[in-house]
């Protein structure tokens, strides 16, 4: 059996990347002669699996939905959740345990693998070959790929976001719900969330979800080099994102950073100004639908990877764009 951890959003619906992980699991199942795909969910706030969630998991071909209840299902504790997932693994006789490559998905798979004494592959893109089971995963924030053998059982891994497109199954699954109340050791509850402060405002200025993002990098030249870029951001009703060079130099705060160790954006339009497009940055903006790069260097990776580009100094190009927008608006 293939056991997939399904994470839920605040409304109790499965998150998109978990549906992608289920789609990945189904492909693996087909390759493995149709071994069933099961899901494991953790009950939250005493809620049991809603009809809506069950219906959606059925559409994604899930045979059995294991729902973890009891002590493990109250506040989040990585070790406790992993312990419960491993109980389900025993019960379902799973040979593969996977999750979406979210912060929590990677964390839980690491716990599961450490407890089971097996390897774990983070951010898997594809698999090729079942004997031995070989996967390709992202390293260096996606700038390189690693081929890795998962020859132990269970094979534990996380699926990188957007590695596959979430697609319902041709034949729906039964999605029978099985409640699991695993016994949790006291030691596994020591590191547990004691309180959660709901974010009052989106500190990233809505970067993560912005439709348009204007970016600025080394080309800004210094902490005073952002005036025109801020104006363009405001004219476009966009969010401002910067490269790591900018935050490391202290020109702008970290919460504006786009990249491997900052916010990952996926806007309709990204306008990086004076950003060369190093791996660190590209890892955070490669999901943008359209990229318009403004850069002095026509050979810069950001320019060659962009959809559109203007070659020039941002301090000349951006004010001219701002003036043109104002002119057309009269």
């Amino acid at each position: 059996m293939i056991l997939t951890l399904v994470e839920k959003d605040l409304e109790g619906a499965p998150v998109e990347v978990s549906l992608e992980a289920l789609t990945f699991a189904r492909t693996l199942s087909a390759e493995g002669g149709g071994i069933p795909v099961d899901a494991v969910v953790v009950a939250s706030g005493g809620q049991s699996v809603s009809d809506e969630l069950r219906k959606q998991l059925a559409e994604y071909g899930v045979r059995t939905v294991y729902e973890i209840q009891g002590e493990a299902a109250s506040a989040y504790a990585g070790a406790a959740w992993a312990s419960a997932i491993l109980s389900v693994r025993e019960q379902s006789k799973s040979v593969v345990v996977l999750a979406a490559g979210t912060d929590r998905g990677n964390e839980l798979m690491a716990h599961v693998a450490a407890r089971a004494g097996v390897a774990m592959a983070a951010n898997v893109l594809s698999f090729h070959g079942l004997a031995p089971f070989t996967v390709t995963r992202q390293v260096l924030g996606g700038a390189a790929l690693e081929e890795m053998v998962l020859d132990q059982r269970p094979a534990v891994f996380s699926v990188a976001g957007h590695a596959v497109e979430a697609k319902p199954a041709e034949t729906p699954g039964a999605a029978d719900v099985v409640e699991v109340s695993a016994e949790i050791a006291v030691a596994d509850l020591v590191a547990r969330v004691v309180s959660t402060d709901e974010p009052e405002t989106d500190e990233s200025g809505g970067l993560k979800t912005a439709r348009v993002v204007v970016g600025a990098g080394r080309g800004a030249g210094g902490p005073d080099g952002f005036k025109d870029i801020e104006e363009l951001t405001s004219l476009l009703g966009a969010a401002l994102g910067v490269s790591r060079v900018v935050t490391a130099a202290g020109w702008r705060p970290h919460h504006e950073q786009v990249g491997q160790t900052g916010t990952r954006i996926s806007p309709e339009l990204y306008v990086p100004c004076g950003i060369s497009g190093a791996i660190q940055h590209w890892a955070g903006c490669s999901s943008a639908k359209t990229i318009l790069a403004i850069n002095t260097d026509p050979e810069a990776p950001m320019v060659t990877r962009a959809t559109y580009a203007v070659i020039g100094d941002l301090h000349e190009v951006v004010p001219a764009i701002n003036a043109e927008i104002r002119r057309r608006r009269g």
Partner: protein
Amino acid sequence: MANVLVCIKRVPDSSSEVVLTEDAQSVDGRFAGFTMSPHEECAVELAVQVTAATGGETAVFTLGDAEAAEQLRSALAVGASAATLVEADGSTYGPADVAREVAAVVRAHESDGTSHDLVLLGNDAADSGDFQVGIRLAYELRRPVVNGAKLVSVADGVVTAKVEGPEGVETYQVPLPAVVTIREGGVEPRYPSVPGRMRAKKVAIEERSPSAEPSGPKRVKLTLPPPVPSNVQILGEGAAAAPAVVDLFEELGVLAR
């Protein structure tokens, strides 16, 4: 008092092009240069803050070749007072191997009378991106672990860690000894001062041999993603390109007020 050990890794600088070694087992950083993983720069800063507040000491650990001493010295220059290098070819070590080597050093120091009440690591290394060494270390040491914290403080033998979770900022309060993995963004790493650099040069780095043969990373090989052919459409040069840019904005419908 809380003593903190920070585990750091020498990684290829991610600001330049990736080149693989001939055996396709690692990234060739000879041209790009090397740095410390960004998450770990913040881990060092947090450790120095914790030890300043509690009167403990910050030590740093790395596993790698002799050149990795450069990254240990960077940490010594910003406030760490001791450093350990386990000299080994890091590309032949998997996450479980590295966790075992860190645990061996923690235990050895403990039996020599130096405790590492809190061990900090980066959430994930900038190169191998395994997302698991800290968690494996916690199981090796039978300690609780908090993953992906941006802020850490210690008072009365309890570590408080703040993590940006899916529903908001989560607070953990965990009794020491503990392991916490750090994510960049909660603190600004300080710049080394001149006296700091001078002091760092004088510290003797403890060199140790690995405690066991590595079982390996289960890596078959590294590859580079196929180059994406450039389809960029150049709209123009300098300020003269502005009308074409605004035409594009109109076409994409992003100018609507």
